[in-house]
């Protein structure tokens, strides 16, 4: 079935909002994602997010071994402009990007200013599989007490993220996607700790 740019994007948006307002809540956008006809191995859920938020008013940057190809796809579908990482409103760190690229992306991302903390980047990070890997404990707004999540290879970004978000309200907001069409969000307010084994 063809992706409905009005209704499918709307249902996916509500799930993303749910995940962003309740950090750690994994939302399923696989229905919507399955309708995206993508030629590359980029996750369809990542494409849904691009279609949801990007247009001529914002900028983006792709971190991937196939940067050129993916950049062309996003630009072609959304008309958003590709720029350098430190200017981009949305940073896409795809599954094939190595750890160095991931760290470069977080380092370079806009964190906003004290007067305009909203002028900061959203990092969209592809992981192999949400609900697997490093066990993490989340606390902060949107979480009743604490929330347990599992994200693969969290050590690659955890410290960098903490560094980047150390001066609240400055910081960047993360949206993780996976191959199955799941989405998980970590806004800047969320404190992430590795789960300590008892």
């Amino acid at each position, binding site marked *: 079935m063809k992706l409905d*740019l*009005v*209704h499918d*994007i*709307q*249902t996916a*948006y*509500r799930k*993303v*909002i*749910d995940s*962003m*307002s*309740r950090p750690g809540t994994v939302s399923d956008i696989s229905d919507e994602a399955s309708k995206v006809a993508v030629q590359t191995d980029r996750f369809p859920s990542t494409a849904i997010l691009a279609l*949801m*938020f*990007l*247009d001529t*008013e*914002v900028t983006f940057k792709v971190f991937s071994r196939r940067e050129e190809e993916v950049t062309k796809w996003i630009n072609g579908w959304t008309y958003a402009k590709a720029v350098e990482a430190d200017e981009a409103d949305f940073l896409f760190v795809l599954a094939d990007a190595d750890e160095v690229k991931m760290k470069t992306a977080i380092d370079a991302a806009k964190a906003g*200013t*004290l*007067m*305009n*903390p*909203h002028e*900061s980047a*959203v990092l969209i990070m592809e992981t192999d599989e949400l609900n697997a890997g490093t066990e993490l404990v989340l606390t902060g*707004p*949107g*979480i*009743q007490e604490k929330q347990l999540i599992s994200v693969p290879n969290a050590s690659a970004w955890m410290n960098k993220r903490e560094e980047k978000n150390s001066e*609240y*309200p400055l910081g960047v*907001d993360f949206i993780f996607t996976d191959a199955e069409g799941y989405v998980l969000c970590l*806004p*800047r*307010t969320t404190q992430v700790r590795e789960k300590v084994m008892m």
Partner: protein
Amino acid sequence: MKSHYNFAFFDEGSKREIRRATLKAIAIPGYQVPFASREMPIARGWGTGGLQLTLSLIGKEDVLKVIDQGSDESVNAVNIKKLVSHTAGIRSTEETEEATIIQSRHRIPEVPLKSGQILVLQVPMPEPLRVYEPSELETKKLHAEKEYSGAWVMLFEHIMKYGTAATGADHPVMVHNRYVMAPSPIPRFDNPKMDHSKALILLGAGREKKIYAVPPYTRVKSIDFDDSPFRVESFEDKSCRLCGSTGVFMDEIVDDQSGEAVYQCNDTSYCLAQMNKNMPVGGTSNEQV
């Protein structure tokens, strides 16, 4: 009905812009994110901020409730409800439990909100510091520096003059211990409902072009002093003349002739539900109304 408008009135570009602002608003609780604020078929100041949020959120499966000062049937509420249901073809309701999106002016419903619901509040004056600082640039600086002594001085002056906080509605709150926020002109009675709310709360100011948010389970504290703590309006020893409820927010109605004051629930759908509950099975008695 055959509609000549886009689904939910807006073009997709407008929705995207509002959605981007909403995402940032949730990520920075209490911070006012500027947005473009479209021209709407109702006048600015009549709930266009809330309306724009609602239209950016709403989908085919949603059930909408709109209230204006506690009433489902006031002109403003009815018009907004009509506009949304005509352009999105969705169902509206008066029952708080049934609604997925609740757009409200000046009240948070009496029935506790649930997880999964979104409360959209219409905001006339999003800037809590505007009372003493007219410049937007300056208030942005004050927020940046977390310089809120002015807000407390304002409260102090109330207490010195009137012996109590005379804020009435829109008593400023501190969100996530960072931003002082205008909760929109809800009565003080509703302020505690924002603290660790189960539902996501989004606030939209159409004329002032701001969107801000309180995510669920977020600390929202009404500003006060240790020796003069925050107090909600008291309706002790008052009960609703229609349904008999106590402990809810009530309107005072003064009889012109006798000069006597009577009280009734401000939340009309809550009042109606209570009255229906009080009816004997079979509904033979309607004398009490």
